């Protein structure tokens, strides 16, 4: 009886057609994007505790913003890892997932502008580490640019999959 239910359920899900088949290009790009997302997240986390606002009056609010940037990057990396696992289990993405990928690309473009401006407003907590922090700031933006580029490519292949799915 359990087997019969399983069979009927899986047949129903397959027949519903709510998910689109994902191309190999999307699967590969998701994997590449995940690696970059994890790298950016680690890069930011690496020094986020060693920076502080240059202006005393902004110390509190900048500290909160630094934390929110960290959370955002961690959540993006987590999301990418989940999608990677999802594609490994079954090579399908829902239309809602595709929409979210498009949204994250826009989010990262905005986050880049925030990161650049926040970086301009902070200095090293230890004055001897100022050079390290300057290099770190440049590397964060560099990796963030790579992530935006990777998400751009991911968005393109995901949209191509959706368009191909709709033609069928």
């Amino acid at each position, binding site marked *: 009886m359990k*087997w*019969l239910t*399983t*069979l009927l*359920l*899986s*047949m129903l*899900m*397959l027949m519903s057609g709510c998910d689109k088949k994902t191309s190999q290009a999307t699967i590969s790009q998701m994997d590449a994007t995940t690696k970059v997302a994890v790298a950016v997240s680690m890069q930011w986390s690496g020094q986020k505790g060693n920076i502080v*606002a240059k*202006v005393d009056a*902004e110390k509190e*609010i*900048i500290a*909160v*913003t630094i934390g*929110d*940037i960290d*959370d*955002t*990057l961690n*959540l*993006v990396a*987590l*999301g*990418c*890892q*989940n*999608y990677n*696992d*999802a*594609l490994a*289990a*079954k090579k*399908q*993405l*829902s239309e*809602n*997932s595709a*929409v*979210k*990928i*498009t*949204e*994250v690309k*826009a*989010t990262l*473009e*905005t*986050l880049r*502008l*925030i990161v650049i*401006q*926040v970086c301009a*407003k902070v200095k090293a907590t230890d004055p001897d580490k100022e050079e390290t922090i300057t290099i770190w700031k440049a590397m964060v933006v560099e990796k963030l640019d790579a992530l935006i580029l990777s998400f751009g490519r991911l968005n393109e292949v995901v949209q191509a999959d959706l368009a191909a799915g709709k033609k069928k």
Partner: protein
Amino acid sequence: MDTKEFLASMDLNVNLFTGDHWEKVGKDMLKVLEASAAAFVKTNMPIAVNLTEDEVKGLLYAAVISSPELPHIPENADAELLAMAARVCKVRAQGFALMSEAQKQKNTSIAVLEKNAKDFAVSLGGVLLNVALGALATGATNAALGAVK
């Protein structure tokens, strides 16, 4: 278009955006919110007309969270605006992580169901094969017995 004109064009109470909250948010962020929310509120006009201030703020917030594109953050933005924008990014990233988690669970469940279905088909095939072999064997035995008789 300023805030009051924007709200008036939406047939909303022009006093909604006064008070401490909006003062704190700042004019720049308000522009960001308005730009993203305009289309959303327009398409939801029938339900937007009689909302409370908190509900309108919720709508605006939701519009920013779900907007495909986020408006440009101006250069030399103040720390408060950057903080607000970073929070919007964080909430949007939370949405991405939640959706990915749901997709992961769904795909894993489908994969398990399909594997179970495949196993079932294999075992059903095995049972049918056994039945067929049994029938063949019985037939052959009976034929052999018939021949002996």
